[in-house]
């Protein structure tokens, strides 16, 4: 009974979305499956997502831009499933986005304040770009307010704060040494941990899946110590890289254009930072043209754009440190027990031989002893007889 009503509900949700957004039920359900897959959710979750998307009352999203190149927004624009304008702008209510909104100037700022007031405690704050903190943060001002003030103001009543891109996550490119503006991450400025989606740019689906997770389950997905969702950032690039077999076999490209490079060999010796960068680039790829469309897939070493201390910090061709060295359990130990020991048959055979030999020897000893005793007895008797005779 429960199962039947569940399916009925899902169908009803799909129908509602179809009417509202003018996309086919199939496209919509495919979107939900895609999101569920990206999030690593079990089968059946797509139905929950479908319902949530339909039922959600288009939560308000405030998107702030600071020291950024807008690459993260651009990355989102290129999402295919769903296309940004068709689904996400209708699933969520993007109430403030400096690149995408039509309004400008005072009207834009007023729209933001109104949306924040109307959705107090319920809107999602997305921050793109780093926040300068030096000299009281004057190096980035929007509408006369510093980025520091703006982010604090908007985060105060937000239901969730998401830092998208490396700049917002940990400082990114603006924070490169010597960091003249004091560019900092959202978490550092707010003084509390936030969800981060690092990358330069990150795959749009990392962000989209996080948002839809929030819509569906009312909370953000599980994250690591740095606030990165585990479904996308728990593995090193090195662990999923399609060129990993070449690394393991010691086949490396030594120079761009050499034979190894043309054969698609591992780029570790060219400085690939895959072994110390957490991200899912090899799994997803970019641009929806398949898994191979990412830097390594195109023949350039990963430079660790999503990883603090690696991207924009280590030289591109500097050798990466291997983070995950944990060898498999069957790695040969210093001393391995080997060799062939006794079997029942061989032990039995040896025991039988030993037994037979011991038995035979014992018997012979006894016989020899007996005959010796007899001889000795004879001798003493002879002697006695002789003595008797001599007497």
């Amino acid at each position: 009974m429960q199962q039947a009503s569940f399916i009925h509900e899902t169908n009803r949700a799909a129908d509602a979305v179809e009417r509202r957004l003018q996309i086919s039920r199939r496209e919509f359900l495919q979107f939900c499956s895609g999101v569920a897959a990206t999030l690593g959710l079990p089968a059946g979750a797509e139905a929950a997502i479908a319902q949530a998307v339909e039922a959600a009352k288009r939560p308000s999203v405030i998107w702030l831009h600071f020291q950024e190149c807008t690459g993260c927004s651009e990355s989102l624009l290129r999402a295919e499933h769903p296309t940004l304008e068709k689904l996400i702008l209708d699933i969520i209510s993007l109430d403030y986005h400096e690149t995408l909104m039509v309004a400008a100037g005072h009207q834009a700022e007023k729209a933001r304040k109104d949306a924040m007031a109307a959705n107090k405690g319920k809107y999602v704050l997305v921050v793109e770009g780093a926040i300068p903190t030096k000299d009281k943060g004057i190096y980035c001002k929007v509408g006369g307010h510093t980025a520091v003030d703006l982010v604090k103001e908007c985060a105060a009543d937000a239901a969730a704060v998401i830092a998208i891109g490396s700049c917002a996550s940990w400082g990114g490119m603006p924070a490169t040494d010597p960091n003249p503006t004091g560019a900092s991450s959202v978490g550092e400025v707010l003084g509390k941990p936030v969800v981060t989606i690092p990358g330069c740019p990150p795959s749009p689906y990392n962000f989209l899946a996080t948002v839809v997770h929030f819509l569906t389950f009312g909370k953000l997905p599980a994250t690591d110590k740095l606030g990165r969702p585990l479904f996308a950032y728990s593995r090193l690039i090195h662990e999923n890289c399609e060129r990993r077999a070449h690394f393991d076999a010691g086949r490396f490209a030594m120079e761009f254009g050499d034979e190894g490079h043309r054969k698609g060999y591992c780029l570790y010796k060219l400085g690939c930072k895959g072994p110390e960068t957490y991200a899912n680039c090899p799994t997803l790829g970019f641009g929806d043209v398949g898994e191979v469309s990412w830097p390594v897939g195109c023949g350039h070493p990963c430079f660790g754009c999503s990883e603090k201390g690696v991207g924009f910090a280590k030289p591109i061709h500097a050798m990466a440190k291997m983070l995950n060295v944990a060898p498999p359990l069957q790695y040969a130990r210093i001393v391995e027990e080997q060799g062939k020991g006794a079997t029942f048959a061989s032990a039995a055979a040896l025991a039988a031989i030993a037994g037979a030999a011991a038995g035979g020897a014992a018997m012979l000893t006894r016989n020899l002893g007996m005959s010796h005793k007899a001889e000795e007895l004879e001798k003493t008797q002879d002697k006695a007889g002789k003595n008797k005779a001599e007497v």
Partner: protein
Amino acid sequence: MSAQHHAVPAPVGGPLLNRTTFIAGLLIALMAAIVLYRFIFGLASVTNLSDGYPWGLWIVVDVMIGSAFACGGFSVAMLVYIFNKGEYHPLVRPALLASLLGYTLAGASVIVDIGRWWNVWNMYWPWSANPNSVMFEVAVCITAYVAVMWIEFAPVFLEKLGLKDIKKKLNRFLFVIVALGTLLPMMHQSSLGTLWVVLGSQVHPLWQTPFVPVLFLLTAIIMGYAVVLFESCIASSAYRRSIEVSLLNPMAKIMLGVVAAYLAVRLGDVIFRGVIGRSFHLSLEGVMFWLEMACFVAPFLIIGTESQRRNPARLFVAGILLMLGGSLLRINGFLIAYDTGAGFTYFPALPEILVTMGMFATEVLIYVVITRRFPVLPREA
């Protein structure tokens, strides 16, 4: 020395097929099948040899212990021809026969054991041989000794075949052969021990010593006499003959003298090098060390006195104990107290054991056949 009446050697006679030879024949057939299998399918197919134990039962028992048991000829010939104890003369031929068989079969065991046997001629080829190698010296010496022994034993065949002239010619040079037959075993038996010097600390300190050639030489001599005791008792029992206790008694006394010298060197070395403490650990090596020692000490309690030595049963047991002691020295040094450090274990496989038994069975069979048909044992008075 009172003149002993020595019987002329003569074939024992009697049927060749009896229970002993029949069983020996079976074992030999089994061995032949396994050896054929080994040559077709490789050593791993019939042995438990491994990367950690490249030498196993065949090398340590068939070759090293087998050849040490075969030192009866050497020990007795030394008594008779070097120390001029002519009264032991009747023991020479049987001891020589056992030696001959022991060494020839040790050589056969080597061919069965080495992996690239078709290259074995390289050992004798001056442009390949490595004179620094202990094994080279062992191999060349043993080969020469086997040849010497066949020549030394040739009079037996010549006698049977009635070739008196050749025999006379041979006798003129016998003293050279005899001298060689005393020198060569001293060389290779001691070097069989020197083999383990290059193993360094892989051999437990209770065994690893630069004095190992002396230990092996002395034990070879001891085992030679012990084997004579052993075989005399068995042959006499098997052929229903009386035992020459009057000969064996004084020989056993000489043997004890060598055992005393051996114990002095062995214990002295272990104490002087400061490792005797390790023998008191409750470990496999500690236990095996004292077991080995016990085998050499016990004979003093068993045949220490003159009257004890008159008892052939005691002589027999003492002989066995000394053969065991000498065997333990070799097994301990090369197998039990040998550790390549890599967690390997070894226990011989059933086919391996059967081949060893087959080798010994071959010796027994040929010994029986030759003693029954050729003039080896002294004719009973």
